[in-house]
């Protein structure tokens, strides 16, 4: 039951909106917190799945954005010099032609991370949790 308290705060209130480049709506984005008490190297993230309105987003359509950079989900395990400061929100950008319709959507984030200093007797704790909430799409 350790490291469980923060998962329920993963998806933030703000930043859920459609994205556009020069008027072309390319998808949508939302913001998440790192669901732990301290920051983490991104390479410690072992799972990050986004489900919107009951449908899992294909990781190929997802970009993880932090520290002014944008990463493919497949790169996350390799990002051992990218630190997620606990007060910084990360942005998940989803490529989806036309974006999402106005109004509320159900957002679910399944998240897991290795606690990198817990190798007691050789095993690292992996903290796992999910956060589900309805969020209105900002205009």
């Amino acid at each position, binding site marked *: *039951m*350790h*490291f*469980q*308290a*923060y998962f329920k*705060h993963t998806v933030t209130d703000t930043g859920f909106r459609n994205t556009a480049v020069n008027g072309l709506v390319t998808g949508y984005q939302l913001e998440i*917190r790192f669901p732990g*008490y*301290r*920051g983490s*190297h991104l*390479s*410690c993230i*072992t799972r990050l799945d986004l489900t919107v309105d009951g449908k899992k987003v294909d990781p190929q359509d997802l970009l993880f954005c932090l520290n002014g950079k944008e990463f493919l989900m497949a790169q996350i*395990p*390799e990002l*051992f010099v990218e*630190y997620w*400061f*606990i*007060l910084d929100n990360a942005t998940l950008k989803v490529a989806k032609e036309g974006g999402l319709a106005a109004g509320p959507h159900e957002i679910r984030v399944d998240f897991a991370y*290795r*606690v*990198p*200093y*817990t*190798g*007691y007797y050789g095993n*690292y704790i992996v903290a796992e949790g999910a956060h589900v909430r309805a969020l209105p799409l900002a205009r």
Partner: protein
Amino acid sequence: MKDSNIKLGISLYSLTIDYFLRRYDLERCLATAQELGAEGIEIVAAMMVPGYPWPTAAWCEDFQKLLQKYRLAPVSYSAYVDMGLRSDRDLNEPEIVQFTKNDLEIASRMGFQVVRTQHAISPATLEKMVPYAAKLDVWLGVELHVPHTIHVPVWREYFGLFDKYGSDHIGIVPDFGVFQEYPHLPWFHQAAELGMRQKTLDVLCPLQRRGVTEEEALKQVPDLTDAERPIAHELFKDFHPAALEDIGPMVKHSRYMHGKFYHIDENFHDACIPYDRILPLVRDHGFKGFIASEYEGHQFDESIDATEQLKRHLTMEKRILGLA
């Protein structure tokens, strides 16, 4: 506060939930520590230092000014050994050395003379750090944390180093969590939230207190649910307190201790960690240094007021130590 060898501080980690939810920024955490009457603070760098693990020199200077503003001593810079930060392998020794040198230097720039590290540093690497800690005039303390005791092999090795080099620049940071005997109140709150029934606890807890094994105890709960199973397992796995006789050897090599706690009741009593026996032993063995109140109930029940808990913990410590 009376003059005493033992000084009382606060680990800002205690205020995690307020910080995490952006209710308190770092300065507000410091202000809270001052209001509570703490003489000094511990900071968890990986949590509260912007730019970690490479904060700017300017930020480190500003931090020292903040401490002066709130009249708080820089007690301990809390470092990790994030040995598992890579997904393909553990950090190797040159990486751990650099990781730790970096923490020692930042700590020094921030004004700290105590750096808390973790056993993952390994005795061999700690030994290599002795000259560097000496040059920087920093004391590098390894935290003794659940599930370890001073009797596990790695800690026997650490004590060997203390005998060899003295404990002017390396030592032990005991976390009083090693003396925890039973689950704490926030643990029960979280257990309930996760589906543990009171009737199951009513059967299992007394058995845990009597030292019955998990296997034997579970026979008394034939209707254990899937949700209850891992929680019941924790109940029997997690609470194996170290012996209070270990406090003597700890004090001998310690300049800093973690006053870990999960809940102090309205009568200023910890029902799970025997502070009333720990603290007199710490004092009577001649400990000289800071004990930082380290509240961790927020990991289990975020609705509890951390500041109130800190206030109770400091009050309890002062009463037990006769410092009130």
